[in-house]
């Protein structure tokens, strides 16, 4: 029963696949689970400041640009559709569609991020103004950081698509960043609702 053999094989034996789920997809979903919890801790802080400490929202004299942020929301949500489009394209082997979809998604995401930075400079309050400012900046900033990570992944996928990678039956490098990007979108809707609208 004991295998005393030295390793002569230059290659590992193929691992047995014991689940129908693909390892990379599962990894991404677990990663997203922990990201959700990270957002959860920030929302807990939001809850403590707004509900437990009874902070006015927004504090007197400040206003949140609900309308501009609304436009920005539409931009980000539409980028989810272009992402989906890109993935569908490569599944049919349509490389031009993939490239167009990815590029468009990237640009929409970038627009979102730049708009948000622009908004920051016009708000008239800062993270150190009061607890309301703290929570506002930290929640939107946390989300912004995730948009940045998502954009980095998208950039890699886009570059690779122009350099001839991905085919109709090998495109996990598009699919996985796509899952993350949808997560970033959904998270923004939650942030927008709780911070701007409620």
């Amino acid at each position, binding site marked *: 029963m004991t295998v005393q053999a030295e390793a002569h094989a230059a290659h590992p034996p193929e691992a047995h696949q014991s689940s129908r789920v693909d390892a990379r997809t599962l990894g991404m979903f677990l990663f997203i689970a922990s990201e959700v919890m990270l957002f959860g801790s920030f929302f807990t802080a939001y809850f403590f400041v707004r509900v437990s*400490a009874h902070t006015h929202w927004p504090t007197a004299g400040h206003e949140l640009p609900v309308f501009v942020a609304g436009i920005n929301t539409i931009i980000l949500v539409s980028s989810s559709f272009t992402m989906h489009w890109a993935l569908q394209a490569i599944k049919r082997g349509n490389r031009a569609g993939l490239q167009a979809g990815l590029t468009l998604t990237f640009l929409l995401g970038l627009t979102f991020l730049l708009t948000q930075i622009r908004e920051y400079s016009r708000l008239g309050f800062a993270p150190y103004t009061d607890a309301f400012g703290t929570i506002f900046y930290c929640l939107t900033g946390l989300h912004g950081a995730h948009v940045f990570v998502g954009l980095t992944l998208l950039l890699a996928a886009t570059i690779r698509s122009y350099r001839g990678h991905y085919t109709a039956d090998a495109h*996990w490098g598009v699919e996985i960043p796509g899952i993350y990007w949808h997560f970033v979108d959904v998270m923004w809707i939650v942030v927008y609702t709780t911070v701007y609208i409620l």
Partner: protein
Amino acid sequence: MTAVTHDEVHAGPAPPPTGWRRLLAPGWLRVPWMTALFFGIGAGITVLVRWLEGWDPIWKGSVITTVELTAVPFGFLAGIGGFDYWMRYAAGSPTRPEDHSGHGARSWRDYFRINTDHKVIGIQYLVTTIFFFVAAGLLAMLMRAELARPGMQFVDNQTFNGLFSVHAALMIFLFVIPAFAGIGNYVIPLMIGAPDMAFPRLNALSFWLLPIAGFMMLGSFLAPGGAFASGWTGYAPLASTHQPIGSVFFNMGVQWAGASSIMTALNFLVTIITMRAPGMSFWRMPLLVWANFTTSLLVVIATPFIAGSQFFVMFDHVMHTHFFDYQAGGYPLGYQHIFWFYSHPAVYIMMLPGFGIASEVISVMSRKPIFGYRLMALSLLAILVLGFSVWAHHMFVAGMAPWLRVPMMVTSMVIAVPTGIKVFSWLATLWDGRIHFDTPMLFALGFVSMFVIGGLSGIYLAAVPIDIHTSDTYFVVAHIHYVLFGGSLFTIFAGIYFWFPKMTGRMYDERLGKLHFWLTFIGFNLTFFPMHWLGIQGMPRRVADYVPRFADLNMFISLASFGLGASTLVFVYNMVKSWRFGPAAAANPWRSLTLEWQVSSPPPIFNFDEIPQVVGNPYEYGVPDARHAVFNGDRQVELEEVPTR
């Protein structure tokens, strides 16, 4: 192992670099200049932003330090080669083939490189964590020297605060948690019949985050104003105001260590779910795998909360935000809620893998099937769920809403039930067994007995009235050391001795092992048991000085603790000597059934020449003809003969 991916183009193996090009190759030559480069980038961006925004002063020490605690580690990781593959992948360049040159270790130098072999990484983990264990232990010796007599002798108050804070932070984040990750890394793929972890490159990266976190925390002693000094719990607003810059070293150190454990947990989960050998159903997994499975779930779900809490404190400290500043609308108690929502589950992160190790050792060494296998696995899951409902038992005296006390008291007592189930199951496994008192078994038995004492003092503390009396006293110190030292540490030692022959291919010195156990066991009890007494009498924890009536007992404790510290020398000597000169170990010295023992010691470079077929339960000791797995040659015959249980 990464499956063949059709959308990757592979380049041939890279020729070894020569001349100045060696500076560009991943490794220690690239580390210094990459680190410097990232330092420059971090400082440059900070200064640029401050200049553009017109903030004064442009060069602000605390801000630069904070930024650099992020940038410099990235430089280090980039230098050592943690990102090379992904950079080439992202650029669409041909990636280096998975030629497995990063597999296996041919000389000690290979342990100081990025290595994708889970066996190498496991050993990297263990050696690193033992280094930090010794460092943190020395800090404890300093503390006990100061506490031997009332009055101030060797250190001032602020330094003392730094000593216990760094001691605890290192023991928890750089020793107990990652040491279990190290054992898991080595053993899990072997146990489930996989050639490696699911994401070998991520695995390598998660290891290299650890030394970063550890040296960051140790390095805080060198920061102006001294080390972080608000305890490993880092309560705000204390930690976010009135603290030297060293406290940012703690905030960031926790982030790096936390990122490392989340990445490892992800890897464990995906490996366990997708890479089990044929026939290895969940109900045939060894309990160590079960334990790491639940622990990893805890890590993935809970660790982001401590990340959040440390971000908040750091922002309050450096950027003057107001998360915990009551006057500006913040909520001071929020810190403790968020922190303990992680840190209570974290005590199970620090214990469940130990339960797994104890189960393996006790079953093998009493030559009996584990009693109530399924209940053992289910009780792990019960702890996982219940663990999230008890956090506020750390806050009975914090001034939280009084109605929360009783529910938290009840849940805290309920969680002792699944824990008790495990203890009874170990006892029932031992019952009537043919017990072999080898060193791993001694540590496992020491664990069971000491953990019971720690669990009992836990129940005491969970009772609100008792906790109000003993909160922040040495009673709590006794409790945490009975569960963490007598519990986690004993199982880590059990695991290290148990798998030492597998990892090194050599046998440790049994006599020294036994000596180590008895010195530790006696020294441990002499040191920590009297602390219960001190605590009930009212001696507060986390102080450098105390009233003279506690003097005798403290002197006794200090002397005992030096003996306990010295016992570690026996361990280290035994490990070093046996690793180099020990007698060659057999493939299966403990006559165990689980898969890692069915291959040579140390295992072949890819673990298995062919993936085994699992045909039965892992613990059928003493059951005639029972088999856990069969290998290629036997497979056909075996499958017909052995009924699948």
